[in-house]
């Protein structure tokens, strides 16, 4: 029931040069054809040479000519056939399509935008995606617009074509807030804010960017983006949802990788073949430590059914998951779609899925001994273990002592264990039971904690030597079914990219190593790979600008979005390789562009929005709502509660008693109060028990690779942020802090509250209104109410 008034807007969309594949086709037409026609009209033996698997094929048509005329259902062959106006009526030999479906098809074809754009885009897209990027010429601009670097030239030239000017630069304050949240996920302190706002140097902003990139909190912020993508979790999921006590070491590895600006090609290789790499990773400015074994945690991060009945099926599920996530995360391709059949949209035959999977055929799960690195705080870890072992010993003694005392209370011949097990036994008092429970829980808690400090890497290994030669063959499985074995395949790269379907050349990778993963890693992390660099620079762009140049960051295929600025994307991708895959170099490039420094407001925003409602041309900066982690961390930072302790095992947040008790397969012991105030990236990631605030504010769901979080606005978010415990506690802490900093004068207090939360003084009207909170309230109460309001403001949760 689309309101009629919207139609002109949608049609106008077609004007935008970067039209995505027609949504009417994708959402309406394609499914109908898929269900009713693709049985005969697809694949190598498509009837009449017509394949209905994608729009390009339909426009090309079969032996009768183009099957669809976009915008003109009446002239579309497909309509004439399904209506029976042409013989034979389709679907041939079956019942006619129901009238409602025919009507739907007709309406959808009518609503498609005219030919031209999509046809060319469809054909060009494949050849673009699957060929390596070549640095395009930086466009020359007609106008006198100022450019800070080539990014601006690419963006402005598109704007010029449409006759639009860019937005004015954002104010210094807005820019300050934007870049802090973007790079370190926290607001600046007052001193940090002043340092920038009062810096007279012409390159004050560039200096700020450098300072933030060197700040270790940058890694804590940007690792989160990567962890979303690799479905990071510290538990298995499924029934037992067992803990992965040292999975945090992978999390810290990612944080270090970003902080040390580990070259992205090395980063990729380590995660796929950290144990096989012959090339020593070069880390700029830091000591060289071999973290490859930790990096392999990537391959382990999927859900795992610990009590599965079918070992063979479990392994297959694991291999499938790994193949799918690897291709999605690094290549931005949905190769996983080809598990059961040839990919319906992309040129990826089913065989390719299994050829990719074969790279992992020699891989097995392994908890590998791996001493703590210097950068992991080797000494501290050892101290922790010693402390926990001591405490555990004491706790075990305590249990014994309690049991001795209780046994003494019981008469001879009564079993203490039996009395404890029987809840109704009159032999023990409530107090007795509690003492025993407290003592045993302390042992449990310490045992769990101790496991988290063991020098173990949650990792993978090759099948046990010397069995390397016995690697299980990989088969193409019809329908993805384990029992439906087809042809056996060798490891091989995607045919559409390398141009042929042959076995990959596997180099020597050391004794007892098959070298398969190394071969895959080198192929992916290569400048010659058409996707790797493009996909990663697009991800970086996405997090800076709110949307990628390709808005389906893990699907660069035919069904994915078309790039709004293909030349810019290619230029960035070639720069990325040229700058030795330095992620920080990419940040610097993007952040110092004028495009990034634009305001979110534009004097002609309304006119521009008529032809570019989604701001694909970047005539202004996009609004960005801060993510759940940033929201929580910022509130803590502003209230002064934030515990900056970095790295190490995660913290366990408090959960409601009834929820904690409902989980029977594991025990959940909240960390101490102070530890609970650590940054959100250090919150323990249990698949069945996400932090409620994260869950309600659209955090990644931990089970599947998440390349783009949804941004929903629902009432439970308001309830959580207004009424939840975080706000209640931190608003009070905030109030006390404000009084401490500002003294007793209400005006000073309000000014300070605004400065801390919003980096600006209140307007006259805001000040007056805030003062009314002091009526009938003590200052700390008034300020706690004001703090609650500030934490909930649109201005607080959105970045301009």
């Amino acid at each position: 029931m689309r309101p009629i008034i919207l139609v002109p807007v949608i049609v106008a969309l077609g004007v935008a040069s970067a039209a995505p594949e027609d949504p009417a086709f994708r959402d309406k037409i394609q499914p109908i054809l898929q269900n009713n026609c693709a049985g005969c009209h697809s694949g190598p033996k498509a009837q009449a040479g017509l394949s209905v698997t994608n729009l390009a094929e339909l426009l090309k048509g079969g032996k009768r000519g183009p099957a669809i005329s976009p915008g003109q259902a009446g002239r579309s062959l497909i309509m004439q056939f399904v209506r029976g106006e042409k013989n034979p009526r389709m679907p041939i030999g079956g019942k006619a399509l129901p009238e409602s479906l025919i009507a739907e098809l007709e309406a959808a074809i009518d609503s498609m935008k005219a030919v031209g754009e999509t046809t060319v885009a469809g054909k060009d897209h494949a050849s673009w995606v699957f060929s390596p990027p070549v640095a395009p010429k930086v466009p020359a601009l007609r106008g006198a617009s100022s450019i800070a670097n080539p990014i601006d030239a690419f963006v402005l030239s598109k704007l010029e074509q449409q006759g639009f000017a860019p937005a004015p630069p954002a104010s210094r304050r807005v820019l300050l807030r934007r870049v802090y949240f973007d790079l370190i996920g926290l607001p600046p302190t007052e001193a940090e804010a002043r340092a920038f706002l009062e810096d007279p140097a012409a390159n004050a902003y560039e200096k700020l960017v450098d300072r933030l990139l060197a700040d270790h909190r940058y890694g804590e912020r940007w690792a989160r983006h990567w962890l979303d993508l690799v479905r990071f979790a510290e538990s298995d999921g499924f029934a037992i949802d067992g803990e992965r006590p040292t999975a945090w070491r992978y999390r810290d590895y990612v944080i270090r990788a970003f902080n040390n600006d580990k070259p992205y090609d090395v980063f990729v290789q380590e995660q796929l073949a950290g144990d096989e790499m012959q090339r020593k990773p070069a880390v700029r400015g830091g000591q060289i430590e071999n973290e490859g074994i930790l990096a392999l945690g990537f391959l382990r991060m999927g859900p795992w059914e610990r009590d599965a009945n079918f070992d063979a099926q479990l392994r297959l599920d694991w291999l499938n998951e790994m193949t799918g996530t690897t291709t999605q995360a690094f290549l931005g391709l949905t190769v996983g779609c080809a598990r059961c059949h040839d990919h319906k949209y992309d040129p990826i035959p089913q065989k390719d899925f299994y050829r990719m999977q074969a790279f992992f055929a020699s891989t097995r799960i392994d908890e590998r001994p791996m001493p703590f690195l210097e950068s992991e705080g080797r000494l501290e870890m050892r101290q922790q273990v010693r402390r926990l072992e001591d405490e555990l010993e004491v706790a075990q003694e305590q249990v014994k002592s309690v049991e001795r005392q209780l046994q003494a209370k019981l008469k001879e011949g009564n079993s203490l264990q039996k009395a404890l097990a029987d809840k109704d036994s009159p032999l023990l008092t409530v107090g007795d039971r509690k003492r025993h429970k407290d003592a045993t829980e302390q042992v449990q808690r310490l045992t769990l904690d101790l496991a988290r400090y063991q020098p173990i890497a949650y990792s993978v290994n090759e099948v046990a030597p010397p069995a390397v030669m016995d690697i299980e063959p990989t088969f193409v499985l019809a329908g993805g079914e384990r029992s439906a074995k087809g042809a056996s395949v060798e490891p091989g790269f995607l045919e559409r990219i390398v141009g042929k379907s042959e076995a990959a050349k596997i180099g020597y990778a050391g004794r007892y190593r098959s070298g398969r993963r190394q071969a895959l890693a080198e192929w992916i992390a290569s400048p010659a790979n058409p996707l790797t660099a493009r996909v990663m620079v697009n991800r970086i762009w996405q997090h800076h600008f709110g949307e990628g140049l390709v808005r389906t960051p893990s699907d660069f295929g035919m069904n994915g979005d078309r790039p709004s600025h293909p030349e810019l994307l290619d230029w960035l991708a070639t720069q990325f390789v040229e700058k030795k895959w330095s992620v920080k170099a990419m940040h610097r490039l993007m952040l110092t562009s004028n495009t990034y420094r634009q305001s979110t407001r534009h004097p002609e925003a309304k006119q521009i929005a008529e032809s570019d409602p989604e701001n694909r041309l970047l005539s202004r900066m996009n609004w960005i709502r801060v993510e759940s982690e940033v929201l929580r961390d910022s509130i803590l930072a502003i209230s002064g509660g934030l515990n900056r302790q970095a790295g190490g095992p995660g913290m366990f947040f408090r959960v409601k008693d009834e929820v904690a008790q409902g989980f029977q397969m594991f025990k959940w012991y909240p960390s101490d109060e102070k530890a609970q105030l650590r940054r959100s990236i250090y919150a323990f990631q249990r698949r069945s028990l996400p932090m409620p605030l994260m869950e309600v504010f659209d955090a990644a769901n931990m089970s599947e690779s998440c390349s783009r979080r949804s941004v929903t606005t629902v009432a439970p978010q308001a309830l959580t942020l207004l009424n939840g415990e975080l706000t209640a506690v931190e608003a009070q802490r905030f109030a006390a802090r404000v009084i401490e900093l500002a003294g007793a004068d209400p005006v000073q207090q309000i000014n300070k509250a605004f400065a801390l939360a919003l980096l600006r003084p209140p307007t006259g009207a805001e000040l007056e209104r805030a003062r009314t909170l002091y009526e009938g309230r003590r200052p700390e109460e008034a300020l706690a109410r004001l703090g609650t309001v500030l934490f909930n403001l649109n201005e607080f949760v959105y970045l301009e």
Partner: protein
Amino acid sequence: MNPEWNRRHFLYRSLVGAGGLALMDFLNTDLMAASTSPLAPKPPHHPARAKSCIFLTMLGGVAQMDTFDPKPALEKFDNTVLDWSNEKRTDQPDLYAKPRLILKSPWKFSKYGKSGMDVSELFPHLATCVDDMTFVKTITGENGNHPAATFLMNTGLVLPGRPSVGAWVGYGLGTENQNLPGFVVLPDYRALPFSGSQQWGAGFLPASYQGTMMQWKGDPINDLRPAGQLSPKDMQDQMALLREYNHAYLDGNFTNPDLQGRIDSYELAFRMQAEVPGVLNLAKENEATRKMYGLDSDTTRSFGTRCLMARQLVEKGTRFVQLYTPSQSWDSHTDIVKGHAKNAQEVDLPIAGLIQDLKQRNLLDSTLIVWMGEFGRTPDHPADLRDKAGRDHNTKAMTMFFAGGGSKPGVTVGATDELGWRAVDKVYRMRDVHATILHLMGLNDMRLMHYHAGRNMRLTDTGGVVIREAVA
């Protein structure tokens, strides 16, 4: 955020921004609602039979041959060996490697109602409702493990991460009452379902469609009341100030349509604070009703209270309510006599009460009740456990029932073999149950889809079959 919403938001905001407040009056409320809430009611694909659904989840798996699918042959073959050696697809090879013996049902069956439906002694109260119920005896699964089978039942796939039925229904239809969540989950806090909220998650759908877990003790919704010590005046003052500051911030910032959406979400939250406690007020029910749901007995109070909450929610326009028994409660591998009796006692009276109550309020026609577990159980058990015999997991057959909401009352669909082991006549899959639920709620399972990870995803994947025999 999908482009469609962006456009709608944009239009909405640009009209307001253009000073066109008067113009807004001409727009239909549909557009207004659509611009502000992803949960606004949406038109169905075809006329709906059921407006709401109450899904009663019997976790652990109920033995069909002890409840609704009598098998006299079990008497005959009791204590004899059932041979599994020819079974190619066994779910739990370890379990079936040991010698096994057939177990006759410990409970007697009788025929009830005009329809002459078979019900065992376990369900004396439900037995009085059979003329309003539709039994399907031939649901088959894919995986005999609890979590995987529960995922299959809830999301159509044995792996975690997909949207649940309730989320899909919300995605397709929105919900009637904007002051209440559209998809409510009422688990049993004694033991939450495996994988917790992933069982009612939104998966790749926007988070707005995820299930909201409600408690039946204390506040029903998280954070409905402030965690701190706040007076009503404190809350009002906060809200008033927030509203004012946020409105001031709208000026000049119309390029962000979500600013208005977020203001609206606070207004809704504020209304929910006022409305939810009133809606879910068990105290206002009269004594007879409370008794009908078993609120007067320790055995039935937990499930009964939640059945009553479900009725109150449905009455107020909540789209989908899902109840759970405690995790693995029905999982009687041993001592089924004790286990099944206990579980049946906890739910029998409350469910019968729910059906009768909905009926007397003329809500049964528009409310679809679905009753099922994640799989059925076997006719036999390991021989070494004869003295405390139970039944094991069985994905080859399960009995489920519908009531109300356009299901066909008083019929039985499908048949199992003489032992109740395998479905043999009119065999259906879990996804067919999903297709049927969607169908009765006005949705076509092939057309309900969401583009994700390179393709259009559906609850029923490549499509389910509507169980026509069960549809009135």
